[in-house]
């Protein structure tokens, strides 16, 4: 790959990021799923748990932010190829010299970036309503955890976009996948509260490791070594997702050209 091609792909990612954000902000469903719903979850959770005291405020904010990230990933990134097909633009994208994976990467970047806004929205809502002073115990570790989480979620989105196209059965379970991941990944309460048999499932989910790193660094309840291990797990999973998604995209696009499903007739 030449430097010129890399620059062209970088420009394609940048404009896809911009265009996706602008389109998302004019979509009421996306605003609800990514900003309003996490805020409601944060307010309800804090209202129920406020008597526990301690660092519950930051736990709830980080957890509700993660719910926004996951919902955005599931509904927006998951539909990033099928959505283009619905509006009739997929043919134009597939026929362009920019690989589909690069375009979907730009879209996921925008979706994850937008979802981070939900964490800020939750922070403001909780701070105002409950008059809480919220502090992040290990800000540098938290910032680094957030960065690795963003990478992991973007890569996870690449896989989901491909899977939702390759097999419509995945898309049928889209709604049903939202809350189980909130629970299995420990967004709102520790997975130690769940039955033991669910733990292995949590361990193979990148969002679980994101929750460990973000909750741990925000509350200061997890040693730095464990946070580092969570980063490692997220990066390993990300690598697997990127390698698998390259293959999935090739299969998806070849299949779509064979089955004539790039456009909706």
């Amino acid at each position, binding site marked *: 790959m030449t430097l010129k*091609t890399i620059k*062209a792909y970088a*420009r*394609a990612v*940048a*404009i*896809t990021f911009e*265009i996706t954000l*602008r*389109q998302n902000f*004019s979509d009421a469903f996306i605003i609800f799923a990514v900003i309003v719903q996490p805020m409601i979850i944060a307010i309800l959770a804090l209202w129920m748990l406020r008597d526990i005291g301690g660092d519950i405020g930051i736990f709830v904010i980080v957890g509700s932010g993660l719910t926004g990230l996951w919902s955005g990933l599931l509904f927006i990134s998951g539909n990033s190829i099928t959505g283009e097909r619905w*509006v*009739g*633009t997929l*043919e*134009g*994208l*597939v*026929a*362009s*010299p*920019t690989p589909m994976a690069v*375009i979907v990467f730009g879209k996921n970047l925008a979706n994850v970036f937008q979802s981070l806004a939900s964490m800020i929205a939750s922070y403001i809502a909780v701070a105002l309503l409950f008059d809480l002073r919220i502090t992040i115990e290990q800000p540098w570790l938290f910032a680094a955890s957030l960065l690795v989480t963003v990478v992991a979620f973007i890569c996870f989105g690449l896989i989901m976009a491909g899977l939702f196209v390759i097999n419509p059965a995945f898309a049928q379970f889209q709604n049903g996948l939202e809350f189980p991941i909130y629970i299995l990944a420990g967004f709102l309460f520790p997975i130690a509260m769940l039955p033991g048999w669910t733990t292995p499932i949590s361990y193979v989910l990148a969002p679980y490791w994101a929750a460990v790193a973000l909750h741990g660094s925000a509350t200061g309840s997890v040693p730095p070594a464990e946070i580092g291990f969570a980063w490692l797990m997220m990066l390993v999973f990300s690598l697997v997702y990127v390698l698998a998604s390259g293959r999935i995209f090739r299969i998806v696009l*070849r299949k779509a*050209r*064979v089955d*004539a499903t*790039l*456009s909706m007739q």
Partner: protein
Amino acid sequence: MNAIQVDHLRRVFTTNVGRFRRESKEVVAVDDVSFAVGDGELFGLLGPNGAGKTTTVKMLTTLLIPTSGSARVGGFDVEHESQKISSTIGFIFGGERGLYWRLSGIDNLRYFASLYHVEPAVAAKRIPYLLDLVGLKDRGNEKVEGYSRGMKQRLHIARALIHDPQILFLDEPTIGLDPVGARELRLVIRNLQAEKKTILLTTHYMFEADMLCQRIAVIDKGNIVALDTPEELKKLVLDLSVIEVEVFGVQDDLLEKIRKQKFVDNVSVENRDQRQILTVQTPRGSEAIPDLMAIFDGRRVGKVTSREPTLEDAYVRLVGGDA
């Protein structure tokens, strides 16, 4: 080397039928199509609905994989070298879809310019030029959702030209446009022809093909039934004259009766508001009018005229009145 080379192209679609006992059914959209388009040529692909025009164009634009046969565009194989073809071609399919309606015309062009690896400085000059070319200079900042159908079609043309491709595929670009919009679009196509672009145009408007195309292939039921210049195609019906009869509510049995007459070569019907125009091709010219009127047997008939055959008549003869 030809810009487009098509050899025995075939495309079969498989669909499932039946609710409980689902069975696969094969539909042959393109049966056996071969043709070549030279550099800088404006080539027409004519045919009735379902003849295989769009399927052929989709295979040539790499959006569909052929079932068998081969095609090369710009010297590259459409199945195995699609990435190399992508930057050399532009395409539009008739209709309003394929644009981002919540974005402005300019933003749509900016996006596709980047995806087609157009340098930002080049895109900054090319976008205003293209908006001017397609008559959207003053509306470029407006959201596409507010555009008329014709404006969206013209924006499609600008999108297809954003990377200055040498080969263009225009699939029924004027369909659904009002007469003024269609005329403006034909002017744009003429200008592109003057720029020596290779253009493959599909249409079922005969006068459009006659006006624009240097050569025309007529496709019917997935096969090329004729391929020549418009002038040569018209010669296919030099032995015929055309009688046009204005009728009101023509029945199928009457049409069948006319079709069976020895002096009738072909019959087609075109609806115009409350009336129909019955077009009868006959080697007997106006002499056949009395015999034709006798078949109507007192039914209400309007104006009856006789004229020389056109490209449309050649087309009707080739596709057997299915147009």
